């Protein structure tokens, strides 16, 4: 299992691995929004948590189809199914690897981009606190979606359509959590919901993803 994680991270960080793709996309979205909205600092501060969350979600979505498609094409997935490792564990490890190269760096860089969007300083902590588990649940849910569409040629559109509705709760509670301090609300309640969603996704979706993979390999 650990060797699978190491291998996935190694592949992602080598040339053409696409580790920087999600991060670069996130940066572009967040940098372009202030240019588009204009120099209205009050407005920017109000929409900053939402922009950061939507950017994170889209960056995650952009890199989802790599989770299984490449392994499917070169036969690795077939060999992994035959190998003496639980397939749900494979799905879990691959979603965590996806999070480590997409969600985690994106969370770490988000305060920097908060400055760009004039996010009040007290909001940084909750922004990061919401993005950290939130992006993990995005990766796990996304891996399930990727497992469902693994055999489909050019399945990117189908994958997006499948996964976007599943992303809505995470986005709602995540953005709510990140922005509630500015709206003088308690960020703890949405944060707990976010944790519950993440834990639920971690508990059930790897198994569902494994079942989807088996069905798709037939």
């Amino acid at each position, binding site marked *: 299992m650990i*060797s699978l994680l190491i291998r996935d991270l*190694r592949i992602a960080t080598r*040339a053409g691995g696409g580790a920087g793709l999600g991060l670069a996309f996130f940066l572009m979205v967040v940098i372009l929004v202030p240019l588009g909205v204009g120099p209205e600092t009050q407005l920017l501060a109000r929409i900053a948590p939402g922009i950061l969350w939507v950017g994170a979600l889209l960056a995650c979505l952009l890199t989802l189809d790599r989770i299984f498609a490449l392994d499917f094409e*070169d*036969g690795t997935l077939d060999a992994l*199914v035959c*190998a*003496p490792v639980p397939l749900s564990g494979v799905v879990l490890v691959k979603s965590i690897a996806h999070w480590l190269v997409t969600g985690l760096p994106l969370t770490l860089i988000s305060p920097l981009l908060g400055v760009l969007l004039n996010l009040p300083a007290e909001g940084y902590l909750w922004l990061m606190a919401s993005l950290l588990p939130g992006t993990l649940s995005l990766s796990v849910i996304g891996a399930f979606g990727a497992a469902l569409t693994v055999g489909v040629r050019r399945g990117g559109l189908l994958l997006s359509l499948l996964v976007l509705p599943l992303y809505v709760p995470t986005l709602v509670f995540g953005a709510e959590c990140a922005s509630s301090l500015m709206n003088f609300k308690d960020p703890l309640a949405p944060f707990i919901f976010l944790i519950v969603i993440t834990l639920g996704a971690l508990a059930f979706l790897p198994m569902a993803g494994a079942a989807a993979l088996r069905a798709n390999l*037939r």
Partner: protein
Amino acid sequence: MSNPNDTSNDLPRGGLRVENLTCTRGGVPVLRGVSFKLSPGVAVLLRGPNGVGKTTLLRTIAGLQPPLRGSIEMNGAIAWAGHADAIKGTLSVSENLRFWASVHGVGRRGISATLDHAIESFYLGDLTTRPAQSLSAGQKRRLGLARLCVTGAEIWALDEPTVSLDADSVTLFADAVRAHCAAGGSALIATHIDPGIEAATLDLQPYSTRGDLNDAPSGGDEDDDETPLGDDVFLSEGSL
């Protein structure tokens, strides 16, 4: 349908028994009533024209798809090598092999000996640090076959393993299969050429459900479980 990992039977380690198997491709049955037994130390070549269902049978036995009917019992682990080599282009030759060895539970201590053995068996010694994407098609195939050596699985299910191999490499492959069988393993090999292995042959054509592939149609009744070659084809050392 039986559990493929069921070991509570009389099969020896590395043995495989297939009984009255019906397997499907794309929802359509292609082979019906396949029964045979594979003993340890034996390699079997699966023969038959294109589309008869060699790959389908191997995928079913490897557990990649469920059988429509019948049972597959085996004692031991199975390793699958299909048309794709399961090799990552950005990883080096030894990184690829090391990954597959650890996935198959080769411990940290035994791993370098296992790797050395696999690399030596397929003459990959000069290529170990090269990224796999810079290998030629034949070298990639050799790496894909070397992967089998590091899995430690008793039963090999190989689909067209000699594609894009030159004559010398086919000899290497035959030696590897021989060594595997000598160590008590068994192998099922779908192939169109003669790899030069002392192996039994299983012709799949009589089991085909397709009339155009079947020279002598055998009844054609849906529920007819009779096989043209009798109840059971035993493939063991005695039949060689």
